[in-house]
């Protein structure tokens, strides 16, 4: 099975993209080998040759000045071009805001079968590739058969674990993509991004606060603990609705879905819509003054008590 992996760069190649490479490597291994090609658009500080350590045979780099802007339309054009060149059986992308919007365009253009939110390695059954997807916002799974000769997967964090790259290197080729007028339809007028913070969707540790924190002036309790742990900060929907915290920190049914190793929920009651966003966390700690709060039904560890005392004590104990 020949695999093409689409990489994103955020300065350097994103951690989630490296996980997509690990996913491709493990898939090739499980399904009897095949070549792995990677494609990336725009500038990056990563030494792309070093991606050979993931078993990549070739990296296609679209960065010839045409890529002043990597967006939904231009990256779709790059991926279509890379598919035409490398003729893969399978395309793997790490789920992200760019990939979520771009992959369906590529599937529609190429006639590929697309599965999003994939949580595990694919299985080959009588020539039909089947994947497990997360559905009903983390409340269930579906096994989906991909009925086309080209398949595209967007994979969630944690879909492939336990892979360490070696020191092999690979060749990097320039990919020339001519962009049509419609490929250049989007004009970026700038981004607003929290700087110096750990990005929530990719975070391995998350400290999250709810209405139990009583107001934005108390958020130091959350950010201090997050700083000690090296964790990302998050919040429940009421907190972002009240503008105590920005929307990009809102975890839940209509917000960000996280899958960290550790999710600490402080002053969050655990409404079903919040739980939907955290259910694929490996370990959940709940701190709440109400022993009947539903969050304790989904938590692995719980403390009933005052968040204003417990959070500083926990911070101290971790230092």
């Amino acid at each position, binding site marked *: 099975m020949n695999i093409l992996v689409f990489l994103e760069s955020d300065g350097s190649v994103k951690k989630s993209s490296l996980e997509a490479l690990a996913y491709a490597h493990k898939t090739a291994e499980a399904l009897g080998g095949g070549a792995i090609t990677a494609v990336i658009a725009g500038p990056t500080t990563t030494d792309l040759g070093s991606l050979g350590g993931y078993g990549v045979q070739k990296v296609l780099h679209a960065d010839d000045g045409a890529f002043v802007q990597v967006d*939904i339309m231009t990256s*779709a054009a790059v991926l279509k071009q890379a598919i035409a060149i490398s003729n893969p059986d399978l395309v793997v992308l790490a789920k*992200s*805001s760019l990939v*979520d*919007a*771009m992959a*369906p*365009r590529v*599937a*529609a253009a190429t*006639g590929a*079968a697309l*599965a*999003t939110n994939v949580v595990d390695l694919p299985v080959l059954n009588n020539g039909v590739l089947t994947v497990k997807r*997360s559905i*009903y*916002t983390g*409340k*269930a*799974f*579906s*096994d*989906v*058969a*991909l*009925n086309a000769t080209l398949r595209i997967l967007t994979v969630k964090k944690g879909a492939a674990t336990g892979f360490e790259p070696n020191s092999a290197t690979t060749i990097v080729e320039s990919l020339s993509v001519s962009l049509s007028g*419609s490929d250049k339809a*989007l*004009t970026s007028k700038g*981004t*607003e*991004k*929290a700087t110096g913070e750990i*990005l*929530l*969707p990719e975070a391995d540790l998350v400290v999250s606060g709810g209405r139990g924190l009583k107001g934005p002036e108390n958020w130091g309790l959350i950010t201090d603990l997050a700083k000690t742990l090296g964790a990302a900060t998050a919040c429940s929907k009421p907190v972002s609705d009240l503008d105590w915290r920005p*929307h*990009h920190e809102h975890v839940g*049914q*209509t917000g960000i879905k996280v899958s960290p190793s*550790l999710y600490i929920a402080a002053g969050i009651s655990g409404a*079903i819509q919040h739980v939907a966003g955290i*259910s694929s966390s*490996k*370990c959940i*700690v*709940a701190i709440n003054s109400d022993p009947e709060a539903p969050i304790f039904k*989904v938590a*692995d*560890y*719980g*403390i*009933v008590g*005052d968040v204003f*005392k*417990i959070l500083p004590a*926990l911070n101290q*104990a*971790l230092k």
Partner: protein
Amino acid sequence: MKILVCITHVPDTTTKISFTPDGKEFNAAGVTFIIGPYDDFALARAIELKEAQGGSVTALNVGLAETEPTLRKALAIGADDAIRINVNPTDAWQVAQEIAAVCKAEQYDLILMGRESIDHNGGQVHGMVGELLGIPSVAPVMRLDVVGGLATVSKEIEGGKEVIEVNLPLVAGCQEPIAEWKIPNMRGIMGARTKPLKVVEPTVTATSTTVQQFSLPPAKGACKMIAADNVAELVDLLRNEAKVL
């Protein structure tokens, strides 16, 4: 401005999800169906744009007759008319092709929908419709303004947002806080009964994926409770039992 809003007919967000014993079908017994929450945001913004600038809002669903109450709700909220494409779709590719077929005939300026449905969470239809129509698509859109033929959208990115300008026609997959949800009033509900709801027969049958099996996550073990004055024990458990630190 001529606006199409594609809505999904999905289980209420508080639904306890279950499947038939063989894991082949969703168990809809006792389940309340709603307009998808993301689609509801898209619909609210479409109505705001129409009220400010004139034009029309059409609500569309790809589904069988059982989805008509959901379309009537969209009419009660303020859509002018509705289209139901009469097929029970099995995947996003099928839905996207049906929507694109309607759009080719109708030439909408804006095609709005939620960023994803809350049942299958595919998030595929907006991009596929854009590609099939050869027009741009953007998602997830948190703000949408239109002046003349130019749309300014604010799109969520990891850890922030990006502002993008794009000419119409455009497909947008929407999410909050693009608009406040609108609750239908009595006048809207009465009026919705007589607004046109057109049933269109499907044009395509091609699908590219098949669901073989549904399953639920394994049941969670009991929560281990720790005394409020003993956070050291919690730290020890996280380090040595859960091994997450």
